[in-house]
């Protein structure tokens, strides 16, 4: 019995929250009712990446790509497409109103992408190990157990040029090698799945869509460094990823791909899951290790590095989800193959969670060296409503802004650092002309202030002070001294904070001061926020020529700040105005202007 048609439905968190699970069940029911169960298989996959258009259903072999599907559409898809063989055109992806429907191979969102990490996401059923195995899964593990020495493995990684995808970009082979060189009765392999940047969901999607790739890689590392135990530290707010990991570990153990004497060899490796409570700082490796040990998640000084003294003081190799997911491919296809992708100093691909003021927000994987322009305009489909691009924030709250003049810079570790940002784990938030830089930086600072572990003074107090100064700036209470203070605190935090969180928390401030100092000065000296985000700096006025005295604004004003009677020009009493903007919305004659 073989199926001739496959219906792939996205089972990522975002699509699930848009009822994809309900649709999965409906599909099964409809297929059963129409007596197609021997011909059509429904597969719940991981994330397709094109989250903007979710929930997504893809039908194979004809490669039809249905977007924004709702439960009401399922009957029609089954009746039309599966029974009658007619495409439901209204559900096909349409890039824009003026363009027609397009087939998957013509979708620009996918055209410039290159998938290594996400190779199985949206392709296989992550809850079925056989589907992973069918796509060369666990082949690399078999290879390293029976054909490679630990040095061979590490050498392959060295040739590949893979660098850590968690943020800092430390060469992965070096980390493995340092841990391998240590003599100890016990070593550990740890997967950092404590993804916490606002807007970032690369690791979650990878684990949801392809959990075995991480398990396999950790076992490979165990073989290379001489470890028999691994831990996956994942935040409890990723329930779907946790469930799929649990299923994957169970299935791998049943097939003898994890546990004692893997594939009959003398190599044993077991993996356990540890749930984090969601503290951002636990993504910092020493804090993460303390949290696994059961202590408060607070960073400890490095050195000693985890490769020397890690979990329970034993040598520990810790990598992030995306780094792990690259490893089986490198072993299978060779380090040399991998090293051909990317730039001089940054090999392979990078997964980004593309969000913000962008048409095609979603999860993308591009070769290192792709420019921001390609990401935003080709893959991302440009800025929403054709607004003007202002900047993109990479590296999350630890990163910096990339202004327009660097749109054509090839994105890699070194280039991003050189322009004052960083790769980070891959959050990419696009801002347009309506975004106020001060406001954006306040958002990031509020995040790091909340998420600081509170241990070291520069981070704990410095962050709070930065935020307070930014508040002053957006409230019109700042002076040019405020900018000097911002800079001084930023430098102190960067140099004197204990861990990466504090050392980089001021990056948004520093990089925006570098590229958008004028906008700060506009707030400080001009008491003006051009983007109209800083309420205290806004004034609402009524243009006398346009006001017909309809009283609509006065009736809507919650503060009784608008004076005027019928057929008279109205005036806003600035001392009473609370800047809510209700008058702007109420006026049908564009007579109320904000500025």
């Amino acid at each position: 019995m073989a199926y001739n048609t496959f219906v792939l439905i996205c089972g990522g968190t975002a699509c699930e929250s848009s009822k994809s699970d309900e649709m999965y069940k409906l599909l099964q029911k409809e297929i059963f009712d129409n007596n197609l169960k021997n011909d059509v298989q429904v597969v719940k996959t991981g994330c397709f990446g094109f989250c903007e258009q979710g929930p997504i259903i893809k039908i194979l072999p004809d490669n039809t790509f249905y977007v924004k599907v709702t439960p009401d559409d399922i009957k029609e898809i089954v009746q039309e497409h599966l029974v009658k063989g007619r495409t439901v055109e209204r559900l096909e992806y349409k890039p824009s109103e003026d363009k027609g429907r397009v087939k998957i191979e013509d979708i620009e969102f996918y055209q410039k992408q290159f998938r290594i990490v996400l190779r199985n996401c949206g392709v296989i059923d992550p809850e079925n190990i056989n589907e992973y195995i069918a796509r060369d899964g666990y082949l690399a593990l078999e290879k390293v157990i029976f054909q490679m020495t630990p040095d061979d493995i590490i050498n392959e990684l060295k040739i590949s040029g893979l660098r850590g995808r968690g943020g800092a970009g430390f060469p992965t082979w070096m980390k493995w090698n340092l841990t391998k060189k240590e003599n100890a009765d016990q070593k550990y392999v740890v997967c950092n799945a404590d993804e916490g940047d606002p807007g970032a969901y690369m690791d979650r999607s990878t684990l949801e869509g392809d959990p075995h790739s991480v398990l396999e890689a950790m076992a490979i590392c165990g073989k290379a460094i001489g470890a028999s135990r691994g831990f996956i530290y994942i935040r409890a707010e990723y329930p779907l990823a946790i469930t799929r990991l649990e299923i994957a570990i169970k299935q791998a153990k049943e097939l003898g791909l994890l546990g004692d004497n893997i594939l009959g060899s003398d190599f044993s490796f077991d993996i356990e899951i540890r749930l984090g409570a969601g503290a951002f700082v636990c993504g910092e490796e020493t804090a993460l290790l303390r949290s696994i040990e059961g202590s408060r998640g607070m960073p400890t000084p490095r050195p000693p590095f985890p490769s020397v003294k890690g979990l329970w003081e034993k040598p520990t190799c810790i990598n992030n989800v995306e780094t792990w997911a690259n490893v089986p491919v490198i072993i299978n296809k060779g380090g040399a193959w991998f090293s051909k992708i990317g730039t001089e100093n940054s090999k392979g691909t990078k997964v980004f969670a593309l969000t913000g003021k962008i048409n095609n927000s979603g999860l993308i994987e591009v070769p290192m060296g792709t420019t921001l322009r390609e990401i935003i305009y080709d893959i991302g489909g440009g800025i929403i409503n054709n607004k003007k691009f202002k900047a993109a924030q990479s590296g999350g709250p630890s990163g910096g802004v990339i202004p327009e003049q660097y749109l054509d810079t090839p994105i890699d570790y070194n280039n991003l650092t050189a322009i004052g940002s960083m790769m980070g784990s891959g959050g990419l938030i696009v801002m347009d002309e309506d975004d106020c830089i001060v406001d954006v930086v306040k958002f990031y600072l509020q995040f790091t202030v909340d998420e600081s572990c509170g241990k070291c003074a520069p981070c704990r107090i410095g962050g709070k002070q930065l935020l307070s100064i930014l508040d002053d700036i957006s409230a019109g209470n700042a002076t040019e001294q405020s900018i000097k203070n911002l800079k001084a605190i930023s430098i102190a935090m960067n140099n004197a904070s204990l861990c990466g969180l504090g050392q980089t928390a001021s990056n948004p401030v520093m990089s925006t001061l570098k590229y958008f100092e004028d906008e700060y000065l506009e707030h400080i000296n001009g008491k003006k926020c051009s983007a109209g985000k800083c309420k205290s700096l806004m004034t609402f006025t009524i243009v006398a020529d346009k006001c017909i005295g309809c009283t609509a604004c006065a009736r809507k004003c919650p503060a009784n700040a608008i004076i005027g009677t019928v057929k008279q020009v109205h005036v806003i009493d600035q001392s009473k105005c609370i800047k809510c903007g209700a008058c702007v919305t109420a006026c049908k004659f564009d007579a109320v202007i904000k500025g």
Partner: protein
Amino acid sequence: MTETMIKIKINETELEVPAGTSILDAAKQAGIKIPTLCYHEDLLPTASCGLCIVKIKGMNKKVRACATAAENGQEIITHDSELYNIRKIVLELILSNHPNECLTCQRNGNCELQTLAKEFGIREQVFKPQLKPKNIDKSTTSLILDRQKCISCGRCVQVCQNVQDVWALEFIGRGFNTNIAPAGDLELNESPCVKCGQCSAHCPVGAIVEKDEVDKVWEGLNDTTKHAVVQFAPAVRVAFGEGFKLESGEIVTNKIYSLLKKFGFKAVFDTNFSADLTIMEEGSEFVDKFLNNPASLPLITSCCPGWVDYLEKYYPCCIEHFSTAKSPQQMLSALAKTYYAEKNGIDPKDIFMVSVMPCTAKKYEISRDENMSASGIQDTDVVITTRELVRMTKSSGIIFDALPEGKADSILGEYTGAGTIFGVTGGVMEAAIRSAYYLITKEELSDINITPVRGLKGVKEAEIDIKGTKVRVAVAHGLSNVKKVMNKIKEAKAKGEETPWHFIEVMACVGGCVGGGGQPYGVTNTIRNKRTEGIYTDDKQSKARCSHHNPMVQKVYEEYLDHPNSHKAHDLLHTSYTHRPVYLK
């Protein structure tokens, strides 16, 4: 094994240090002081304050000198204008998070943050004050925790968890709202806190301090209806001088007698006297068990109130092994309000008994249960720590250096060397052995110096030969070390085996009372050793060095108590223990 030496360069000075030396210590060796605020010699570096950052040539990031070991060939810069500026900003940030209450703070003039602000020439509040809400925990009778003043350096958490193994204090909350408090945001008296006060001794600022009761003492002294008397503990005499720029360990016993007399105390007693009395009671208790009921051993000493609280909370299974003898403080106070009162025709209610202790838990001990009111009313009225006595002296106008050598009042003031060594770890054991040997054999020990129980090693063991019978003893100090000993006892008991020791001495604080939580600030092992040396010097210089040779102790037995462990002695000088919950909530 010879130490591997490494060569490094600090600010152009070349030097050799043993491998593993921290940059901070190496710099000290090169005559350079790197500013620190969270670092304390007693503790593992928490690396929280960020002041000790230094540069290493070839390294991008600055490292913390306290937590980084120097490596061979490194060129280290500890001071330059960049580092100065960063440190100053960090300091200004810390100051912005700390209330400007220096003038009314208990640590005024003795605060590490204040000193740094002075050294860095900070003249204005550069950043807007960003304070934590006022939150003062006065729930215990020993300590006051002011969370707003806390700079989150983590010293108290480390000392409480790692050195004392009490786990009363913990970091709670996150980010800017991080606080130090008992887990679950409880108050200290609801927590496992044993009131040892090591947190207060290690706090660099005024966030955790002893409950200041100097005013209460003055009040009692000025009350004409009261007959004020005072005692002070063994360890006070070798540390008090530090408050007046004297060397640690300098014995100032006689000057303290004069000082207290000048304050107006009608009688000045010495806790060393009742330490001798404790030996007679506890020693007899041990001898009795050893000879008549060895199965009930080990006997565990009980003169340390922090330790008593700890045992009641964490080892209730061992209560039966606890000596019922009260601490010297409580024995003396009980006698002052009975024996001394009767002898001098004073109504015990009119006696105002003050006690000067190196210890904050002593403030808790005086009202811990009804046994502490053996005289019918609370035996000790007020306890002040060594630190409080220093402040009291300074405010009194008395120039300590100029005081004449004085004397204690007889009977409750005379002591032997055995009494004085109660102030150090191993001292109670040594004093007990000196007398137990006599009590068992009716002969004197040929050498009364029991050196194996001396010193700062965490757990000390010895085997004492009493005429062919071996007595196995253990001495532990610092509650994390005590735990090791207690767990072995618990284990042996669970298995029904004989416990490894017959007699065990415990002091909650590292070094014993000389390192107590109420002693002058800045304690390190160097200082503990100096104070200890002072104690042993006092012992050596004493006319009598065994408690059973104290003529006044004999006299009290003759006149009042009859004999050790007599009925009356039991009423006045012994107590009982109870299982207390670790958490009250």
